């Protein structure tokens, strides 16, 4: 791995971390409950992207399974929270 690619990966991870901290601010601050659910969904997606970038960084394909699981758990969690906001019961 050349210096250019590792520098680009480091910069991308820094941008992701800045975006995740902004999402975390919205999660803590958010005026309504649906804002918090939206911020949690955003955090899941950025975490999944971060796992994919780490797969390139460490040259390992094991991170793909983690990223796929993060997509599925983020979907289930967001839908359950949104259904809870809609009806007052999750299932």
């Amino acid at each position, binding site marked *: 791995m050349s210096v250019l690619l590792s520098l680009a990966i480091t910069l991308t991870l820094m941008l992701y971390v800045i975006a995740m901290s902004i999402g975390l601010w919205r999660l803590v601050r958010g005026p309504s409950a649906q804002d918090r659910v*939206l911020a949690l969904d955003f955090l899941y997606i950025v975490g999944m992207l971060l796992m994919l970038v780490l797969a390139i960084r460490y040259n390992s394909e094991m991170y793909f399974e983690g990223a796929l699981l993060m997509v599925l758990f983020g979907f289930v969690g967001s839908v359950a929270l949104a259904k809870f906001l809609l009806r007052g019961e999750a299932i």
Partner: protein
Amino acid sequence: MTPEIIIEVIVAALLLFSGVVVLIAALGLWRLADFFQRMHAPALASTLAAWLVTFASIIYFSTRGETLALHVWLIIIVLSITAPVTTIILARAALFRRRRTGDPLPPPLRNQSTPPLS
């Protein structure tokens, strides 16, 4: 300019562009005024940024190993199925909660081509 250098430049450019797109999505989540405006911003992260990272990963692992590494498509397929479902259910929940608390709702669409159901 060997082919390895060109491939690494392409992968680095795709990754940096995805980082910038995710940052734009986070800024939209931060700065936009209303919840229904804020819902638009994270879609940028779940579509464009995810596609860019997927292309970077496919290019990197396909040129690194001997075989074509296409299994990252699975993440894109799952994400493109699940992201609209989450968005629609969350929008319906937000509308329901706003109607119940009496907060101002977004205005209806005007000049509808189909007549409203009633």
